[in-house]
């Protein structure tokens, strides 16, 4: 058996001589270089497996579930905005496009509120992220307030698509 063949076996078993074939064991008995190789491999294995396991930080699960709840809330509100914009008998694609438009308008409104330094009365920050703030109204706006809000949104012209403007605030409103 050659040194190369023995060393391949040694790598397979991390240098443990107990798991070697008889031929490799006999080779080790007469080859100092391969014995050295076995010792280095065993040491490497011990070092590697002495690394302690690391645990997820405290509150990790709660953080994941909170994030899911935020995303679900966001999806729920945008779907409702879509319903306000599109009659129920229109196609789902039209509805999807309208939902996008509703979000864009809400974004424009959010920027406007942000420009005044605070969110509207009765509205609280729901979630914050590096790319903006998501807010929902609590208590919810009335239908009339919402209509007025949407009229103001419609009077605004979006000059940039949402994806190109990560700094905007997204404010979503719901009715009482």
């Amino acid at each position: 058996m050659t040194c190369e063949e023995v060393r391949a076996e040694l790598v397979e078993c991390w240098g443990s001589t107990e798991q070697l074939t008889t031929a490799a064991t006999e080779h080790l008995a007469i080859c100092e270089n391969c014995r050295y190789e076995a010792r280095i491999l065993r040491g490497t294995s011990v070092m590697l497996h002495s690394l302690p396991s690391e645990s997820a930080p405290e509150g990790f699960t709660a953080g994941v579930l909170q994030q899911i709840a935020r995303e679900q809330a966001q999806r729920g509100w945008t779907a409702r905005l879509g319903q306000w914009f599109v009659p129920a008998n229109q196609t789902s694609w039209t509805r999807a496009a309208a939902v996008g438009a509703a979000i864009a308008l809400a974004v424009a409104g959010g920027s406007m509120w942000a420009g005044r330094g605070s969110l509207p009365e009765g509205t609280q920050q729901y979630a914050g992220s590096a790319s903006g703030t998501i807010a929902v109204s609590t208590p919810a706006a009335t239908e009339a307030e919402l209509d007025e809000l949407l009229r103001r949104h419609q009077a605004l012209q979006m000059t940039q698509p949402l994806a190109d403007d990560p700094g905007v605030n997204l404010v979503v409103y719901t009715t009482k």
Partner: protein
Amino acid sequence: MAKARQLSQQDIEELVERARRGDGAAFGQLVEEYKDKIYNYVSRMLNDPYEAEDVTQEAFLRAYRSLPRFRGASSFHTWLYRIASNLAIDVVRKRKRQEPTYSLDEPMESDDGEYEREIPDDTGSPEDRSTTRETRVAVRRAIMELPEKLRDVMILYELQGETYEDIAEILNVPLGTVKSRLFNARNRLKESLEQLVAAGELEVES
């Protein structure tokens, strides 16, 4: 939250099915079950606790979003690992583009200034801790110096205890590829740590 017991495969399948139907509590139990395993894996891949937390969280969020498409062709745990692996590899590649000379010895930067990489060790005497800490830093460095494909297999097999078959499924590569990558990874790790072992930093039973 302390884990009451290890969930059985049947428990997992039931939780996955409930989570697919929108049961948040069931998904919460799945997160509890796998969070440490996935975090440990990602942490070893990235060697950065903050990035590891972000990537682990994103892995679970993606898993939740993709649950309706999970058909059970693979086990939930290999599927989850695959998501985490893809995310971790993305970060590794992004780092390569941004920081070609990533070093474990360099302090990290944050909004609050620079800070040392955190490698906790509270065992043994101060002298022991110092030696152990140096050894661990050396091992972590050696792992981080492995190409990501070898590192992935090395961590999954040696530190996470996954089988060849599961690793092949997680990484979507043939079984032979897993074995050859592991062989190469062990060889490279041995070369990196040879001087430390040979210098007698660690007592090795012969």
